[in-house]
């Protein structure tokens, strides 16, 4: 069966009075505070905000990696409890298993479902074709370029036909040209595999280019300060970036983000606080 025929049922998200605390003891702080929002099935939503504002923290909670300190978070009416293949997550840097070929990485989710080797490889190859990586199926992940690694990562998540596709600045580490190509590829895939997308970014152009709707977030504690609906027609291409409507909204977003007092906050991750402490050096003799 084709991957397109097995299209997922997009999920609906409801957050009510949602708060998340990070850190221990005296260092603890509310990364996001009393968020109320709803995301419709099949919507492409960008969460836009400055570094450290808690947008990745919210994504981590949606993926089930972080626990709420207050309020509720429902996906299709069910409270989020732990990670699930129904809620696929793409990190800023790829998390492909270095010891599996690209093909077996993409087939990983099917392996976890107990699907046989031949069948899961066949489906994985079809997914790779969708992201244009069919010729790299047998490579190790570290033999691919950054853009290819993210394409493999997206294929690996989509093979589970998730209700939600959660993306944490997935193209943030790529060069400008690759990023633009990846954005178009993502929209192209999204027209074929329609799922609810929550895409976190601090790049205004990226948010405006991709989204149906932008939720703008202010930092510490993170709150939504704007809910923008974009009416740009699809399919979108690079010419949109220079259209008057686009520039107008971009100015509006810049205005919103400029309100911040210029504090630079450390980047938060979907797994909590950034890990700076390296494990202690152990002389193993």
């Amino acid at each position, binding site marked *: 069966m084709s991957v397109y025929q097995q299209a997922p049922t997009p999920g609906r998200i409801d957050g009510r009075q949602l708060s998340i605390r990070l850190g221990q003891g005296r260092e603890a702080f509310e990364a996001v505070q009393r968020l109320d929002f709803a995301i419709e099935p099949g919507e492409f939503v960008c969460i836009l905000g400055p570094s450290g504002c808690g947008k990745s923290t919210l994504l981590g909670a949606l*993926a089930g990696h972080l626990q709420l300190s207050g309020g509720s978070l429902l996906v299709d009416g069910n409270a989020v409890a*732990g990670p699930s293949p129904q809620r696929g997550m793409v*990190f800023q840097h790829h998390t492909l298993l270095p*010891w599996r070929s690209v093909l077996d990485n993409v087939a990983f989710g099917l392996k*976890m479902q107990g699907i046989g080797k031949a069948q899961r490889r066949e489906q994985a190859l079809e997914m790779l074709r969708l992201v244009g990586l069919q010729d790299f199926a047998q490579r190790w992940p*570290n033999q691919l370029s950054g853009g290819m690694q993210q394409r493999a990562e997206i294929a690996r998540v989509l093979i589970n036909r998730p209700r939600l596709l959660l993306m944490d600045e997935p193209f943030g580490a790529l060069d400008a040209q690759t990023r633009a190509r990846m954005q178009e590829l993502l929209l192209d895939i999204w027209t074929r595999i329609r799922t609810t997308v929550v895409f976190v970014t601090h790049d205004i152009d990226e948010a405006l280019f991709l989204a149906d709707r932008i939720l703008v977030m202010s930092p510490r504690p993170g709150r939504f300060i704007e809910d923008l609906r974009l009416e740009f027609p699809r399919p979108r291409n690079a010419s949109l970036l220079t259209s008057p409507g686009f520039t107008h909204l971009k100015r509006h977003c810049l205005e919103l983000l400029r309100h911040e007092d210029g504090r630079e906050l450390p980047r938060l991750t979907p*797994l909590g606080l950034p890990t700076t402490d390296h494990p202690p050096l152990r002389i*193993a003799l």
Partner: protein
Amino acid sequence: MTQLYRWPLRLASLAACLLFWQVAANQRLDLGLIAFTYVPTPAAVLDAAWHLLQSSKLADHLGSSLGRVFSGYLAAAVAGVLLGLAIGRSKWAEDSLLPPLEVLRPIPAVAWIPLAILMFPSSEASMIFITFTGALFPILLNTVHGVEGVDPRLVASARSLGAGRLAILREVILPGAAPSIVTGLAIGMGTSWFCLVTAEMISGQFGIGYYTWESYTLQNYPDIVVGMLLIGVLGMVSSTLVRRLGAFATPWYQSGGKRA
């Protein structure tokens, strides 16, 4: 391969050392601090090695040494990797298992010899225990280190893709820690030979260490050097074997990711 021109100097250096040995032993050189009076010449060593090769004793000595190293090391590899995975993965296992092991760790395996002789019914078992102790800690600590070094994002990602506890251990933790485990296994191989030879000198019957020490007591001085060289060769071969097996088990890690 491209640096063939460097080999003449390397070989000349080796030859110079051999020559010095021959001259010093022949002249019974006495430097005050160190004396070559009783040191056999290379020719005498070669002769003794030839005799050992012809006799049936060699197989017995080699067989018992290899048997001891193999059983002690294998037990240490299994115990070290299993304990290391448990300690690295679970706080409970870390708190209950690590403190006693940390107390035992600074004690060199060789220091166990007297107690081991008292504790085990046969000297064979006590020697295997010494080998086991010598190899255990490098393997254990490197495994713990490797498990703790696995990127938490890989674990989170695997969970998001539907992996359960066991699948994460098998698919993420074990391969992620594998390069570190291989390092531990290679170091452990060296220490287990070192411990075995010492143990054999003290309580052995048969075995390369025993052979070397027996040669000293029987005043067969060339045989001492033969024993020493044999120990060196065996240690080198087994370490190389472990490294080769390790490279075979972690193909993504070696060779900059070239797929065979």
